[in-house]
């Protein structure tokens, strides 16, 4: 892999903020020049709406928009680019599956499984659909290290379960879940599986065919792309069955005042003028990410986490939340009784950007009996010296508050 110093040159934000220790990449990644320029250039010299336009600019934009679909399909190993649906992000992708796919299949007494560590985005859509259809949302518990309890999970599988939704890398705990095994077990009961890949898409070699997941949801902005664009991958047979939940222009075959027939997927899920510049930006982000071997990125994330655990071990009263040995570049912790927001404010004045709060996993925080955590998260541009600064400042904060 290229050196971190070299990689950092790709990201103009670090030139603007030379003193910034950005340890919040799980919230959003920074954007490389190629993505920023790509979007600006699109608006500057290619801008037009897609599809029906006959003139050159529109045809070029349509072609580019569809070419990105192919690049995304290649990135995740999808069989066909038709299995790639553009959404506004992970949340949007999961909502589409919950309402367009699962709702029709779900009857009173049926069950949906999620884990105790899910982000609100992979919890509330299922909770809503279960309430609506009289089905039961069941929560797969965690062991004392914060890992999924696989024995209990296997016991929970049955013919009643109509969907499993699970996060690949936990945004709160940093653990990498054994999703290959979980998917294989679920498939024994023909249960479709949705994988929340928001954190893993950049940091693991996510391949939908080797994982055999039925749906994969992820966002552009956590993988060096712009905000407001995301992807839903689905297996063709399921996308055929899944119904659109938004209706309007560009998703139809034939329309009369009485009836409408829909276009085939993926078009039937992309009503209205979509986030075209977002798709173009996503394309540049995929190109950028494709310059890296994600096996190498994964190694680097493990290296940074283990470096951070070593450094934090020297800080008095530190408690790491999420102790799995199988983790990515995310470290959640508590510092004595100091509230995470107080910690974040102190770190912020030293230009150390971390995240404090429940990380959109309130039920998990309740389960762990903590109100919030402080979280440091890394990316390909993260440096050990930033972790050193974090650890040093945490020591100061600890002594100030004690």
């Amino acid at each position, binding site marked *: 892999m290229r050196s971190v110093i070299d990689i950092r040159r790709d990201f103009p934000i670090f030139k603007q903020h030379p003193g910034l220790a950005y340890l919040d990449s799980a919230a959003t990644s920074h954007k490389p020049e190629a993505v920023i320029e790509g979007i600006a250039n699109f608006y500057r010299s290619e801008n037009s709406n897609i599809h029906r336009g006959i003139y050159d600019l529109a045809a070029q934009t349509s072609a580019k928009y569809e070419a990105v679909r192919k690049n995304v399909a290649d990135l995740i190993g999808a069989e066909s680019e038709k299995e790639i649906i553009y959404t506004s992000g992970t949340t949007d992708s999961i909502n589409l599956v919950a309402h367009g796919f699962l709702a029709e299949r779900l009857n009173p007494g049926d069950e949906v499984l999620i884990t105790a560590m899910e982000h609100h985005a992979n919890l509330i859509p299922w909770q809503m659909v279960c309430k609506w259809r009289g089905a039961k949302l069941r929560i797969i518990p965690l062991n004392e290290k914060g890992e999924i309890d696989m024995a209990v999970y296997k016991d929970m599988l049955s013919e009643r379960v109509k969907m499993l939704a699970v996060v690949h890398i936990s945004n709160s705990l940093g653990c990498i879940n054994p999703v290959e095994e979980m998917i294989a077990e679920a498939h024994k009961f023909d249960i479709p599986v949705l994988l929340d890949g928001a954190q893993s898409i950049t940091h693991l070699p996510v391949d939908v065919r080797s994982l055999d997941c039925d749906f994969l949801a992820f966002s552009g902005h956590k993988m060096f792309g712009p905000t407001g664009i995301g992807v839903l991958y689905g297996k063709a047979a399921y996308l055929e069955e899944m119904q659109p939940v938004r209706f309007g222009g560009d998703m139809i075959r034939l329309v009369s005042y009485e009836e409408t027939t829909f276009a085939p997927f993926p078009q039937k899920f992309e009503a209205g003028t979509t986030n075209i510049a977002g798709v173009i930006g996503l394309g540049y982000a995929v190109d950028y990410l494709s310059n890296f071997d994600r096996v190498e990125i994964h190694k680097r994330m493990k290296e940074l986490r283990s470096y951070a655990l070593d450094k934090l071990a020297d800080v008095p009263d530190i408690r790491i939340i999420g102790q799995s040995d199988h983790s990515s570049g995310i470290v959640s912790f508590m510092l004595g009784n100091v509230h995470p*927001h*107080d910690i974040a*404010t*102190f770190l912020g*004045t*030293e230009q150390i950007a971390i995240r404090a709060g429940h990380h959109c996993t309130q039920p998990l*925080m309740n389960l762990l009996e903590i109100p*919030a955590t402080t979280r440091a998260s890394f990316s390909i541009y993260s440096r050990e010296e930033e972790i050193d600064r974090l650890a040093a400042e945490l020591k100061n*904060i600890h002594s*100030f508050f004690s």
Partner: protein
Amino acid sequence: MNPRLKELYKSVILKHSKEPVNYEKREDAGEHIDAYNSLCGDRFQLYFDLEEGKIKDVSFHGYGCAISKASTSVLVKFLEGKSLGEAQVMVKEYLDSLSVEGEVIDLPEEFEAFGAARDFPGRMKCATLAWEEMADYFEKE
């Protein structure tokens, strides 16, 4: 460490967050106010009784950061024994003093400590959480 931040947290906030005034649940209280910030999860319950138009036996309980806990503690301390009218004026003065620098003069030192929160917009809500709930309560009374 940042001197302005130390200023904000100095004795008043650290003292009140570590040794909060009348920090106890009181389910039998006549009045009960729930101060909750859904963005961060901080949540405090305020308890008091009204006797002949005066606020009595104020206490609070809950969970939050040092600033939100201290600002609630200071509120509890200064509410005790005030008439509803006096308390309403006091709460307004406190909130005004935080919204614009130099707006209100001659405030208790324990109020002024929170003025430094103006430098940290992300933390303003922590200094005002319980106070704003109190202001709403007076509006409704």
